[in-house]
């Protein structure tokens, strides 16, 4: 019987964490909007999300052992994120194209390289990470990682320009009227030498 109580205590804590994380992410969705809820819900959602984040130890200092223990548990159990896939709305995604400049003046275009169709999904996730990060330095490092792999395939290239754009998807009606997906320019990075910092241009 004592063993059953131990299992019950663990399950209670485990489910509580799953529900708290899911509620926090749902509230974040409402706070960031747009959703079908009235705009007045945004303020409440922001406050509630902050409170839930605090309950999950996110307001404690990073060095706090309780915060670290909780973070470790949710990561190893796979419950660190909510389940709002493709919700509340499906984002357009991001595209990255490399402009390869050869010494003789020739220019070629290349997409991020993958060998198998199965790797297309992880790469799409990678591009979303690049597009969504608010940190310029991180974005540059991630773009450079992909640029390096292209460079390895084309060692005679003199410089590489990486152009990041967000994808604008047409509605079904626009599609029937002939409109197709388009890219909105976001950032461009010029890489000349492997270790040199990139020169960044943005829209």
């Amino acid at each position, binding site marked *: 019987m004592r063993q059953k109580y131990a299992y019950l205590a663990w399950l209670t804590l485990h489910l509580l964490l799953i529900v708290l994380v899911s509620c926090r992410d749902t509230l974040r969705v409402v706070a960031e909007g747009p959703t079908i809820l009235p705009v007045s819900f945004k303020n409440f959602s922001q406050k509630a999300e902050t409170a839930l984040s605090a309950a999950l130890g996110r307001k404690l200092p990073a060095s706090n052992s309780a915060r670290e223990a909780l973070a470790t548990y949710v990561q190893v159990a796979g419950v660190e994120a*909510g389940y709002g896939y493709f919700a509340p709305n499906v984002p357009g995604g991001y595209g990255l194209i490399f402009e390869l400049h050869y010494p003789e003046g020739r220019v070629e275009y290349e997409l991020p390289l993958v060998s198998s169709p199965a790797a297309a999904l992880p790469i799409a996730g990678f591009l979303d990470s690049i597009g969504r990060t608010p940190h310029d330095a991180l974005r540059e490092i991630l773009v450079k990682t992909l640029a*390096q792999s292209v460079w390895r395939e084309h060692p005679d290239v003199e410089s590489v320009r990486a152009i990041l754009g967000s994808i604008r998807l047409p509605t079904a009606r626009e599609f029937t009227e002939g409109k197709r997906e388009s890219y909105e320019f976001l950032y461009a990075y010029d890489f000349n030498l492997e270790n040199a910092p990139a020169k960044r241009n943005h829209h």
Partner: protein
Amino acid sequence: MQSVKTKLFGFLFPPSTDTWLAVLRVGLGLQVTIYSLSLRSDWISLLSGTARKVAEALLSLESHFVPRLGWFVASAAQLGIHEEAVLFLAWACLLAVGCGLVVGVASRFLAIAGWFLHLCAAKSGSFVSYGMDNFLTIGLFYLMLSPLPDRYSLDWRLRKSQPKNPQLLGFWRRVLQLHLCVVYFFSGLTKCLGSGWWDGSNVWRALIRPPFNVIDPEILVRWKYLFPVAGIFIFVLEFGYPVFIWNTRTRKIWLPSVCAMHVVIAVAMGMYLFSLVMIVLNLAAFGTGLFARTKQIRLQPETASA
């Protein structure tokens, strides 16, 4: 109070056979095997170099104790072993673990190894991991904690293992069931908050968005009048899951519908691995014995009286 406690324990520790555990073991074994094989040519490029180091640095801001490939890479570097060799070894071990889980040899050890190796890959490659990795971590986490081996495994035949406590088997199945209810509830809830799922535009966007644009939009657009129905159907199916999955009658509609939804996601969006893990989790949690005749479960003497 006593009756509430009895009901609670009765709900959380229902006697169960280990068929669901066999489904989970074989299913996740297949998932790990296909996952490894599908990424064989991109594994090293996805998990090596700067991206891995940045992902691990960000992970360290959360916790220093979450497993990662960097631990092995750093240790091996001291022995003069290159990063690529370590990553290849991790991939080969993961593939072997997947195959081992399918046949059920050293089930407990391989379940722990599978969870650990996949977690290392998912965390070190957090920029390239997606929903499938989350659910695979969840599945492997429950698998390694569940009372293995099951009677369909090679372990059972080789070692002549004793039957496991049916109430403990029932408990771990219940944990998986409750978790799936939370998953679908919140997935349905967040979808119904978006106007695009009501008017069907999100179905269209999901199907034409790269890299999910498997079906030609020219074909899809002919079915545009069905998108609002499909959008509402999806979130009703997910939102209603925690209610309708428990009753045996409604489960016979809900479970096949959810599995069919995942098959459509696999075919129409190319998300084969994501769909497979979801179907495996659903079948293990609610699928076994659904269409079979109800059988009496023989309890062990000590658990029967508990």
